[in-house]
């Protein structure tokens, strides 16, 4: 009896083992056969040139990997004659991706072209792991060289640790201010209010939103404005006092003639006082410092919030979610920056979003030429729409003779690793991208976004700290993580600390490394001014 049982178990194991072996060799299933390819595949390689393949690593939030001879591989090959292969690497907010990259680099198998994260490029340059692009770009990738503004290349030069101004990285660039306060224009219209221009107007608008029931449901459930935990995503309230801030992280700009961290300026003290008063009067969401992304966006999408702060070009996402959730068609409009008395308000503009690509240092001339071909196509504005629309049948579809982008489907779409229209964005490229996702049903919300993004260049101020490398924080991780700032700001806003504690914060910040970091930052700034 017992023998039968054990035999059965062993046989089951053998059965499973053979099935596993068969399963391993089955390979990819229906995924690659679904999409229509762009026609000529083998012919281009028969032209005598052997296609060089480059392994590219990029953020992948769940899409399929790009395999050799798959639809996207062939699509790219037809566009610029180089094969792109991109494995699926777990992103996990960048941490797993970074681990994987480091392991591969340690094993001597770094990918040919990859997106670095968390400042890892600084060490890689020092160790000679990255390709020197300074002479290659103007000669072999002229489109990219011209498209990225010269000021940005100068900042990239300042990242060279040897101080020789060599270029090792390709930046991602925004040619216009990205984020602003977004206000419910339809609420303003309903309450007969005009777009606020002074801080007084602004307070009146907030109070009206709170008390006059603009969402019309008979309940006093409106939240005039708010943000998220760590006092983030309400930058515009700080911006009224001339504070440069990016997604809630204080930035470096010129204050009193010197490059200074905006969190330790007198501007910040007044800003915190203002926000504290808003909090006391109930004009900002009492749960602001507790909201996570889902929580805050849930309130926005429930037709409860009057003003939020986020990307001007993305208002259509919020508008569509709001409509599908509540049936209300909201009108989200950019609110121009307001100046508090005695200050000049603006929306922070940074041209450098981050480092987009670095190339592995190699002597293989074929690979270098192939990479340059890729980068040249990447910088060629005429091709950007094509990059965005991807493979016809997989990422996009013909509708009434026009190629339209399909909604994201992670089951069937390969990761679009080359998206220059988004990485090097201009107002025109973004408008084009928005137009290509517009359908009759979504036209109302997308037109709002187009109008919003086109207003943005008027409201931005390019800050001096644009492109500052994280190496200035070396040795002072706490200053980089702004833990002290978050603690003091939160407690002052809720009223737990009196405003006088702000001076204590500045002292502590300076003593715990702020002074050293400021010195390093000012040295870096000098270099970019040359």
């Amino acid at each position: 009896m017992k023998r039968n049982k054990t035999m059965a178990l062993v046989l089951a194991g053998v059965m499973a083992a053979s099935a596993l072996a068969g399963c391993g060799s089955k390979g990819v299933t229906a995924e690659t056969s679904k999409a229509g390819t762009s026609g000529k595949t083998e012919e281009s390689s028969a032209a005598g040139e052997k296609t060089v393949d480059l392994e590219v690593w990029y953020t992948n939030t769940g899409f399929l990997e790009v395999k050799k001879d798959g639809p996207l591989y062939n699509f790219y090959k037809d566009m610029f004659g180089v094969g792109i292969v991109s494995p699926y690497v777990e992103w996990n907010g960048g941490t797993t991706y970074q681990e994987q990259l480091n392991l591969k680099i340690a094993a001597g198998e770094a990918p040919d072209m990859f997106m670095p994260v968390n400042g890892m490029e600084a060490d890689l340059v020092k160790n000679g792991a990255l390709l020197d692009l300074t002479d290659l770009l103007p000669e072999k990738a002229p489109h990219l060289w011209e498209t990225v503004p010269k000021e940005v290349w100068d900042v990239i030069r300042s990242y060279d640790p040897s101080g020789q101004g060599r270029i090792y990285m390709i930046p991602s660039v925004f040619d216009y201010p990205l984020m602003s306060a977004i206000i419910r224009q339809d609420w303003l219209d309903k309450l007969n209010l005009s777009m606020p221009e002074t801080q007084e107007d602004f307070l009146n608008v907030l109070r009206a939103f709170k008390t006059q029931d603009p969402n019309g449901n008979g309940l006093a459930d409106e939240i005039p404005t708010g943000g998220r935990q760590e006092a983030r995503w309400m930058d515009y309230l700080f911006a009224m006092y001339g504070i440069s801030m990016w997604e809630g992280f204080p930035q470096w700009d010129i204050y009193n003639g010197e490059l200074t961290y905006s969190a330790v300026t007198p501007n910040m003290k007044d800003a915190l006082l203002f926000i504290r008063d808003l909090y006391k009067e109930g004009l900002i969401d009492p749960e602001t410092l507790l909201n996570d992304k889902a929580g805050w966006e849930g309130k926005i999408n429930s037709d409860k919030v009057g003003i939020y702060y986020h990307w001007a070009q993305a208002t259509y996402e919020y508008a569509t979610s709001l409509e599908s959730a509540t049936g209300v068609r909201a009108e989200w409009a950019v609110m121009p920056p307001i100046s508090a008395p005695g200050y000049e308000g603006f929306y922070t503009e940074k041209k450098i979003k981050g480092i987009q690509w670095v190339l592995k240092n190699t002597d293989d001339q074929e690979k270098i030429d192939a990479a340059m071909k890729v980068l040249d196509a990447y910088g060629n504005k005429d091709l950007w729409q094509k990059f965005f629309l991807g493979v016809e049948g997989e990422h996009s579809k013909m509708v009434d003779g026009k190629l339209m982008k399909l909604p994201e489907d992670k089951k069937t779409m390969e990761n679009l690793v080359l998206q220059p229209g988004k990485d090097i964005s201009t107002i025109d490229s973004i408008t084009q991208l928005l137009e290509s996702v517009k359908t009759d049903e979504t036209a109302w919300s997308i037109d709002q976004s187009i109008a919003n993004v086109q207003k943005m260049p008027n409201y931005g101020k390019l800050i001096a700290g644009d492109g500052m490398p994280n190496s200035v924080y070396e040795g002072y991780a706490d200053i980089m993580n702004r833990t002290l700032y978050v603690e003091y700001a939160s407690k002052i806003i809720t009223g737990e600390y009196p405003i006088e504690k702000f001076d204590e914060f500045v002292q502590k910040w300076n003593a715990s490394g702020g002074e050293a970091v400021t010195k390093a930052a000012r040295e870096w700034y000098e270099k970019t001014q040359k």
Partner: protein
Amino acid sequence: MTESIKDKAFQGAITFILCILGIIALIPLLTVIARSFSSKAAADMNIINLWPVGFTLASWKYILSDPGLWKAFFISLSTTIIGTVLALAVTSLMAYPLSKSNFKLGQILMLYVIMTMIFKAPVVPYFLTVKGMGLFNNPLVLILPHILSAYNLAIMRTFFKQFPAEVEEAAMIDGCGYFQMLYKIVIPSSKAVLTTVGLFYAVTMWNQFQHPIMFIQKTGLFPLQLKIRQLINGGSDFANIAAVANVNYTESTLSAATVVFAIIPIIAIYPWLQKYFAKGAMLGSVKG
């Protein structure tokens, strides 16, 4: 048995506290299950608590129709089953001799085993070693590194040590060798420890994450946990220009559904295996 009021009250209090803890542990699970059955609107408005809002099967339909998910499930299932059987075989083969006090080498070997439990290898050398064994992108990497766990080995060894010597001596007199003893006598009477250790191994292999992340890059070979990771993403703040889809699911409902999908097998198996934790398997085997 008579229990005093004090005992009863004590029992009652303990039961009450454990019930509360159980409910607290259950709440997140209920929220996730509720979210997997909720509509896009409800997820966007963030109003889902313990019960589905806007009940819909859209998220489940989406994930269950993904052939990649089933393949990953099958890979996880088969590697867990094969791995557990292999692990039990290897572990018991090692635990048995180490449990014999007259095996002098056993002391030293046990010391080596405990040392590996205490000192872990750093990531990069480990990666290079395993890769050097040819296990990169190889499904065997889901099995081989786990087939011997020092902790489980210690459990088995202790159990075998407590195996009554009289039974073994009786068998030896009848002409039984060590292998036969292990196979015919010790193992059949060790159901309790085999099930326990087997369960530990099975759960480890089912849930394994570090090894697949480091060593498997072909998406076709992903085990279930990695496949789930592909579908779960916190939603970063890049605003993507993407076409709006007319579907009744969002990232959060899809990830909730996948998480529940991954938990179901374990929850299903556990109660069924409870009955194998038979106490007193040893009683009655020694006659006289």
